[in-house]
């Protein structure tokens, strides 16, 4: 990539230099009436500006092909790789770790220093899985054209992930986070994810949560797989991928973000599949209770 930029800037400089020289030197002066020499062409020059670009293309082609094949290697079943099955939905991301039996959404936790091998597919339309700071992007296709690729990072931190293929109204808002943590923390996170579900302490609220939310969502070992897994949502960096929590630039408290979402999901992400809690018959109080419960559902890792 750097090589290509260098070559291209050099080409630009040469062409622009010739261009500027010509435009200054060969303007038509006042009173100039004689006819300039009608040059047909120049065989030597033609050869020069055919061969030099050919050489440049060749210089660029060699590393390109090398990298294409390196990128195309399948590390999915290699020892030491952390497998992640990514399933894209309108408009959220599901991350399954088949080696650990863990399923989460919107926030991909990865251990540093290890090769993360992805298997990408979509549950509906095409999306494209992209973490700009860590790697290139790869489309998520339906069954039959499933893609694999991998990347790794040594630096702990939170990275921004995006959907890069037009996927409907809220395509722009289909963001997610990648959190790279130390291998120790990663193991702790896996253990915490597999712990039994923590439900609201208030019995009535727990019932409401089970009936209204867990028919699609899941926490720990309870609930369904249709909608994003909510286990430990209180310790994530964002709600719904785009309402950033405290600690991020311009972030707001988790609970506030959860309430914004729960009060009117369509206002946050037009065209998403979640029914508004109010339409399910939840009162403001119950929404507040669930937001409070989810905000405090944190994982230690």
């Amino acid at each position, binding site marked *: *990539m750097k090589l290509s930029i260098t070559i*291209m*800037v050099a080409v630009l400089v040469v*062409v622009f230099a*010739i*261009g500027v020289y*010509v435009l200054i030197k*060969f*303007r*038509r*002066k006042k009173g100039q009436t004689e*006819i*300039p020499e009608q*040059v*047909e*062409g*120049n065989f030597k*020059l*033609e050869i020069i*500006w*055919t061969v030099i*670009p*050919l050489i440049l*293309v060749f210089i660029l082609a060699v590393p*390109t*092909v090398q*990298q*294409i094949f390196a*990128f*195309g290697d399948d590390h999915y079943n290699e020892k030491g790789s952390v497998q992640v099955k990514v399933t894209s939905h309108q408009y959220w991301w599901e991350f399954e770790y088949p080696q650990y039996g863990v399923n989460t959404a919107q926030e991909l936790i990865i251990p540093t220093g290890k090769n993360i091998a992805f298997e990408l597919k979509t549950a509906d*339309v*095409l999306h*494209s899985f992209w973490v*700009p*700071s860590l*790697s*290139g*992007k*790869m*489309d998520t*296709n*339906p*069954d*039959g*054209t499933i*893609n694999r690729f991998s990347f790794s990072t040594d630096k702990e931190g939170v990275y*921004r992930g*995006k959907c*890069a*293929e*037009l996927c*409907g*109204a*809220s*395509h*722009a*808002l289909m963001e997610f986070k990648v959190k790279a943590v130390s291998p120790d923390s990663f193991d702790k996170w896996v253990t915490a994810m597999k712990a039994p579900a923590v439900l609201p302490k208030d019995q009535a609220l727990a019932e409401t949560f089970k009936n209204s939310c867990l028919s699609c969502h899941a926490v720990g070992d309870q609930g369904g797989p249709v909608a994003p897994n909510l286990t430990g949502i209180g310790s994530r960096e964002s709600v719904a991928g785009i309402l950033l929590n405290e600690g991020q*630039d*311009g972030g707001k408290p988790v609970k506030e973000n959860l309430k914004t979402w729960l009060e009117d999901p369509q206002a946050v992400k037009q*065209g998403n599949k979640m029914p508004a809690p109010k339409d399910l018959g939840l009162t403001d109080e119950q929404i507040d209770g669930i937001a409070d419960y989810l905000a405090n559902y944190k994982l230690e890792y």
Partner: protein
Amino acid sequence: MAHAHSVKRHKGLMDWLTTVDHKKIAILYLLAGGLFFGIGGIEAILIRLQLIKPMNDFVSAQTFNELITMHGTTMIFLGVMPVIFALMNAVIPLQIGARDVAFPFLNSLGFWTFLFGGLLLNLSWIMGGAPDAGWTAYTPLSTHTYSTTHGVDFYTVGLQIAGLGTLIGGINFLATIITMRAPGMSFMRMPMFTWTSFITSAMILFAFPAVTVGLVLLSFDRILGANFFEVANGGNPVLWQHIFWIFGHPEVYILILPAFGVISEVIPTFSRKRLFGYSSMVFATILIAFLGFMVWAHHMFTTGLGPVANALFSIATMLIAVPTGIKIFNWLFTMWGGQIRFTSPNLFAIGFIPTFVMGGVTGVMLASAPADYQFHDTYFVVAHFHYVIVGALVSGILAGLHYWWPKMFGRMLNETLGKLSFWFFIIGFHLTFFVQHFLGLMGMQRRVFTYLPNQNFDTLNLISTIGAITMGIGVIFFLINAIVTATKPKGVANDPWEDGRTLEWAIPSPPPEYNFKQIPLVRGIDAYWKEKMAGNKEMTPAEPIGPIHMPSPTILPFVMSVGIFIAGLGFMFSKESFSNSFMSLIFNNWIVVIIGLVITFGSMLLRSLYDDHGWHIEVEELEEEGVKA
């Protein structure tokens, strides 16, 4: 003038609806293309206004997707293509020394099908929602499951009808250029604009059937419940991407080649030198067209085609840089040693070169698949293709329009307004799109209706929007220029730029309806320049003065297109449940489709059974005009 032939000549609106004269069809193309270009431009401004600041709510997400889809589709199929056809129609027969195109009837049919297809597509705005799946209409997003309005139906049916017009036009120009060149004009003496139009027409011939097939399959999926792209039933959405880009990439070259041709006419004229390396230019054009068909999968590097395909398509794509480079250097060396005049057409032509070079180098960067994994579907791509399609192509078109305007209308465009529109256009353009390279590199993906703050996107997007408005002002200056000029009296010389080189400058501006009283004899490349240098004021005629055979005007192409339009609408709404029982009756029982097809096929039958041998302009009338001139 009309004394002997008043029967054959219509007046007013009827004249325009029935004309088969390539010069009038050119003006129709220009008006219709200009109209759609304006609509697409307004859509672009709305897009930029939405993106002026983060989390803006100027338009909704759904509306935004409709805007980007219609902006892309309109600009490519209905804005730029017809204006190119306008130039081709206005200039090609004159450049090759012909009295019209090979099939004047088809020429008219091509225009009307294009117009009705375009109108059908744009009707979607007022008939329940525009298409919203991007101009690429990737499945499954564009299938009935995920796009439930009739938007994408308008897209598939509208583009099929408009595409018919383009295909007809392409075939017509192929036949015209092959068969109707004046005596002495061998292929290697053809002006470059004729050459590039010839190659473009050949590309249309091969590329448009591909997209037509794709659109037919998609409309069958959506309207008749076929399963070409339905995964659950064994269909494959990646198939759509292949079909679309097998058309889509050549389409880019279909658009840009005629602009290359314009530049190759304008620069020699205003440098007072012949085109440097003519034969290498011809060769480069053919090579670009050939390679253009071999690179479609570079739009699909992230689809997951595997390393072998990605490597091959990477290298094939990079190779295109070589013939394009040849062209750039040839233009530069045409100016070398010349006497450059900075008229408004030449300003646009000179502005074309650096802009196109920048679009070209980013193209090579994108061609490298590993880098494309990052660039793909970001604003870097948006910047790249706008550099090529707007900065270069539209500059080329504007250069051509300023250059041939006196030939088309008999009036010079105002130079001051022309220069103003150039500077506003080019500065606005670079302001809009240069910063988008960086937005892409910083991680802004394309087709987003908004973006979160704190990503360093805000200032660059603001600059981009200001640039778009500046560019809009440039276009408005051009519009004012056209209107102001139209109010001035006609009467420019045959060769208003004084250094015209090709045949069109040897005849009056605008030319009489038969173009050449006597078909000229061509004695070399740049035929008119050659005669001028030999001290002749006119071309040597290749035939004596005699009666000229002309095709009759006819309303049939217009009627046929109306029929196709009605059938298309009927097909789209055939499964709709209407509240009105009469509407249900005529749509759900295919009655509307049948009416439309009867109109079209009836007109075709009429055309086949009724022999129209055309008419003649007699020698006396020619001489009478000769005296006047």
